[in-house]
């Protein structure tokens, strides 16, 4: 008998993996693949589906009817994302820096308050902000009048020029707690010795933050960025609850999510078109995939090398 004993097949690994693998395959991977598959088919005679290759994608990207709507939604979605990147994440970082400093008192209270909107229902957030900004009963006019700016009050959500930006700000207000908590966790994790050493060397608070703390939380910056990207390109609910599926005025707040919803399920007299809906979902998937891959290869890998 061979003295080298073969290791028995590690059945326990299979057992532990099984629930997650099964549930994810059944409820995430299978629907995703089936939806991508549907985008490659066209409706044939009598409700059958006929394989059509990339015809639907070509239609979506080139036809006079689909392409302008698609590019409008993509453009709006990038604006929505840009506002989150330029406003939400810097504010989240700023708040985290304040809350991690030992000078500020009552940080637990602030942390909870700032995070509260994140756990509220989007429908509620949309409703509250509609009321705040309402030209009829909103407080935005009184608020501006207090600073002598009353005449600048506008029906913000009803103007093509401002609706999307204002909705982005509402979303920022709601979700700023998430980057704040992630940054805060990273900042708290920085060893005190590093900061004390820098202090001894005569670094100011400003220098300590930008030269010591910020480089050390760069991995979190990347994670926050990619989470924002994925979240924004999947966004739908805020626009739908405040502006409806037609994402008015004149589609100025139409993002990928609302475009998809309207196409897939139909709207009012417009019949639903599941196949083109699946095609739009395919484009959304590709955009998100591209963003995540850029993050993985362009950011995360470089970071790992930096750590050596």
């Amino acid at each position: 008998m061979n003295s080298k004993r073969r290791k028995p097949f590690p059945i326990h690994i299979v057992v532990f993996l099984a629930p997650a693998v099964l549930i994810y395959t059944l409820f995430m991977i299978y629907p995703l693949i089936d939806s991508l598959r549907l985008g490659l088919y066209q409706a044939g005679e009598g409700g059958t589906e006929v394989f059509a290759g990339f015809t639907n994608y070509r239609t979506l990207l080139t036809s006079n009817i689909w392409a302008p709507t698609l590019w409008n939604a993509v453009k709006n979605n990038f604006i929505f994302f840009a506002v989150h990147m330029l406003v939400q994440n810097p504010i989240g970082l700023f708040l985290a820096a304040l809350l991690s400093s030992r000078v500020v008192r009552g940080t637990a209270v602030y942390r909870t308050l700032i995070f509260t909107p994140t756990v509220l229902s989007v429908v509620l957030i949309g409703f509250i902000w509609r009321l705040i900004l309402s030209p009829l009963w909103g407080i935005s006019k009184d608020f501006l009048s207090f600073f002598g700016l009353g005449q600048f009050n506008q029906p913000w959500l009803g103007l093509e020029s401002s609706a999307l930006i204002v909705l982005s700000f509402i979303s920022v207000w709601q979700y700023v707690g998430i980057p704040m908590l992630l940054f805060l966790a990273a900042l708290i994790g920085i060893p005190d010795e590093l900061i004390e050493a820098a202090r001894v060397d005569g670094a100011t608070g400003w220098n300590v933050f930008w030269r010591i703390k910020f480089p050390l939380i760069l991995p979190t910056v990347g994670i926050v960025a990619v989470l924002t990207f994925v979240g924004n390109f999947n966004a739908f609910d805020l626009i739908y609850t405040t502006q409806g599926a037609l994402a008015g005025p004149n589609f100025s707040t139409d993002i990928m999510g609302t475009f998809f919803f309207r196409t897939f399920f139909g709207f009012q007299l417009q019949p639903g078109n599941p196949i083109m809906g699946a095609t739009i979902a395919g484009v959304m998937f590709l955009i998100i995939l591209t963003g995540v891959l850029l993050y993985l290869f362009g950011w995360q890998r470089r970071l790992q090398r930096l750590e050596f």
Partner: protein
Amino acid sequence: MKSRMVFLLLVILVGSPVLAQQLTIESWRNDDLGIWRDIIIPAFNEQYPDIEVVFAPTAPAEYNAVLASKLQAGTAGDLITCRPFDNSLNLFLEGHLASLNDLPGMDNFSDVAKSAWITDDGSDVFCVPMASVIHGFLYNQDVFSELGIEEPATWEEFLALLEAVKADGTYAPLVMGTNDQWEAATMGFQNIGPNYWEGEEGRLGLIDGSVGYDDAGFVAAFEALAEWQPYLTDGYQAVAYPDAQNLFTLGLGAIYPAGSWDIGTFNPQVDFEMGAFRPPPPAGQDTCYISDHTDIALGVNTASSNQEAARTFLEWMTTAEFAELYTNQLPGFFTLSNHPINVEDPVAQEFISWRGECETTIRSSYQILSRNAEVNNENDLWNASAQVLNGTLTPQEAADFVQSRLATWYAPQQ
């Protein structure tokens, strides 16, 4: 405690064969839940105590999508509330709605009443018509008497009246917003438009291709709509439908462009007398046209296991009793049956009286023209009408936009 459990179990076991006669109604009219539960269904149960009926509405904006998913999954209710024209026609063609040709009582409805729920060749009717809604204007009588103004008979008088309310400055002259877009098209364009495109003549002309949205009548309708702009409430671009409803019922506005369904919503809320006038035609035009829109009907889900009970319910809905009940319990929804009905609500009475004075038509985009999923005529009209009121499109541009979009797929318009 234990005996109660046993009793419950017994009720469930023994009672279930009786409860098999349960009907569920799918509907978008969640505002009417109370009236169905407390008045209409009990009235039905007086004659048919064995059939339990549950009214299970969905939010109006989600109804079509939710219903489609439920039908596909086989979980939809036994009775389906039918949207007019293509939405229901498609459900019938897909086999979700049963043909009702042989339903006793269908002869209580005129061909016009049935036209919204019939196949293109007229061979199958698939929903029992329930009601139509009429467009017009509601006004606050207190404001009118305070300012010493009267119902306008012509479009010119209407504009002068709006100017007077605006000059006074106390009340919003015209209470409507464009935020939800559909009010601009439905209570605006489709409300005043028939006077300009001559009702059925214009509407059928669009369908057979003899006129287009860029022809005189429809452009004139957009031009008339654009004249509302100075009189709409402040910040109307961000005013939603419920905002406008509240503004009017709180007595802060003078005139509300309405669908007759608003009467039932407003009655319990207002503490002033409401009046109504029909869309005023331009001076010198003798014939007036109103939108008397076939709006709501009820059909049978072919997948229902209670076909017989469902048909019994529908048959009861063709009777004068139901027509009377429905019209008077839901003022503003007018029965489509031929039964002579005594309308009790004075404002609703005013609306229904226009049927005798004017030519009637339905909304221009509902039959056939909104069949296309990619370029949808109804959605285009919402967008264009809202933009005309927001001042981002001129009437001519709006008309050209709607027409060019329709021409992309509708052969008679090419």
